[in-house]
């Protein structure tokens, strides 16, 4: 039973359908990845699940509840967190202030969540009072993910978290994603780094030209000959 799912969703920017009749979802405490070539509609599908894009068809369900018509801010209140690919921090605010903004709508467990985020990303502790815009790429990503975690979301959605980040940092980031999932948060990611993403995913959705191509357990997809040839480079 999916915690968050998009059923038969069709959407696009303007008259062209970028995504047609797609089915995506993630279960509680699990990791799902959406992979595929450029232009497959991965980010578009994710944005539709978060409400940044209206659906032309289909619906989005959270915990069995139909949230298709809710605005993104309302979905945040329902327990969803979203980390955009770019422009995902407040550059002139300090790291601590960024995290505080993450908890803007629910300050009740601010201290506890700050501790949790700093435990997850210890590299940020020293940079607490530094402007987020001055941090390196990897650290900025940590701030971005940390900001989204501040509301204790049930589902965390990451749009290409490894974009612009060095391989070592990327490894570290994916380890953190595993940790977050282990603690009960469902994680849905869009990733270009298909190999790395599928390795840690319970469920992988391979999209191409806006349609589901393959859906399977992450490791099975990695072993699938067709998938390897088409997207993973043999």
């Amino acid at each position: 039973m999916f915690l968050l799912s998009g059923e038969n969703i069709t959407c696009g920017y303007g008259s062209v359908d970028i995504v047609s009749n797609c089915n995506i979802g993630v279960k509680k405490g699990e990791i799902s990845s959406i992979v595929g070539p450029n232009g497959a509609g991965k980010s578009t599908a994710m944005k539709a699940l978060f409400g940044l894009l209206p659906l032309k068809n289909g619906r989005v369900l959270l915990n069995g509840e139909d949230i298709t018509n809710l605005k993104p801010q309302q979905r945040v209140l329902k327990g969803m967190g979203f980390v955009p690919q770019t422009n995902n921090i407040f550059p002139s605010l300090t790291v601590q202030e960024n995290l505080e903004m993450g908890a803007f709508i629910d300050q009740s467990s601010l201290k506890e969540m700050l501790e949790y985020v700093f435990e997850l990303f210890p590299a940020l502790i020293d940079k607490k009072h530094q402007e987020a815009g001055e941090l390196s790429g990897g650290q900025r990503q940590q701030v971005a993910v940390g900001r989204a975690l501040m509301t204790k979301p049930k589902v965390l959605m990451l749009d290409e978290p490894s974009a612009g980040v060095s391989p070592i940092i990327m490894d570290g980031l994916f380890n953190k994603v595993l940790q977050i999932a282990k603690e009960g948060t469902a994680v849905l990611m869009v990733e270009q780094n298909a190999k790395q993403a599928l390795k840690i995913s319970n469920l992988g959705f391979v999209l191409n030209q806006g349609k589901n191509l393959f859906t399977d357990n992450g490791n099975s997809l990695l072993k699938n000959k067709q998938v390897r040839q088409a997207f993973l480079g043999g």
Partner: protein
Amino acid sequence: MISNYIVIPGLTYGSQLALGALGITIVYSVLRFSNFAHGEFMSFGAMSSILLCWLFISLEINLYPLPTAILVLPIAIIFTIFYCLIVDKLIFKFYRQQNSKSVINLIVSIGVMFFTGGLIRFIVGPGDKNFFDGERFVFKAKTFKNFTGLNEGLTLKTTQGITILITVLLVILLFWFLNKTKTGKSMRAYSDNKDLALLSGINPEKVVLITWVITGTLACVAGTLYGLDKSYKPFTYLHLVLPIFSAAIVGGVGNPVGAIIGGFVIAFSELIITFAYKKIFFYFLPSFMVPEGLLQILSTDYKIAISFIILVLVLLIKPTGIYKGKVI
């Protein structure tokens, strides 16, 4: 003497410009457009103070030795904020909802500028008004001479003292608000990254409201203090827009600290360049060598050109200003 004619007036005029530039910078930073109507908002604030002053004086309420204007300032601020909010609701909101480009909002603000100017002249008339009452000097040249035993006297007019004091207080209050309160931080966040702020649940209506409250307050105080110091003439405020914008841009537009520094840079530049250096030479040279003219680098008529020249220089050399500002 330098203090009398440069330092103290510079600090005073700089404070007035700084307050004006802060208003510009905050609207630019949060609402993302250049508000050319700010000069007239300042004029509106001054007008409100004047009308309330006349009311209070006729009712014989005053605060001697402070000018009555200080007493009515809080009420005048409320009037000015109301006007800003009405203008926003009737005019700016329409363009904001259409996600208009920044330059469209700028042109709209010019319209608001002309309208507000006309409205003010309609209410109080275009003539000069002096609404200063209260003790004129904190200390005069003679008192200072006697007190310190120096040769030249230092004068501090009450208006100068009040301006500097109130500016310091307001600036401290503003920075405390922006850096230490949740709402202030949310405004900085909204200014930084509008989409992410909306995602975080920050209410854009509230941010807009508070922006105008702050801008209205700054405009009213700046306008009133300027009018107190120099006498109120509605047309003056039309001309003030240039130095205020120069101050905001020189300091780095969108940056509050920059706006303050910019204010003082412009103020002191104007004074230093138009200062009559004759008197200084008078001291150093024997009398037959003192030149005929006033020895100004530029005559006082060019005062307004100076802020324009500084603005052009800054835009050519370091367009982001002293403190790196925002570019929309």
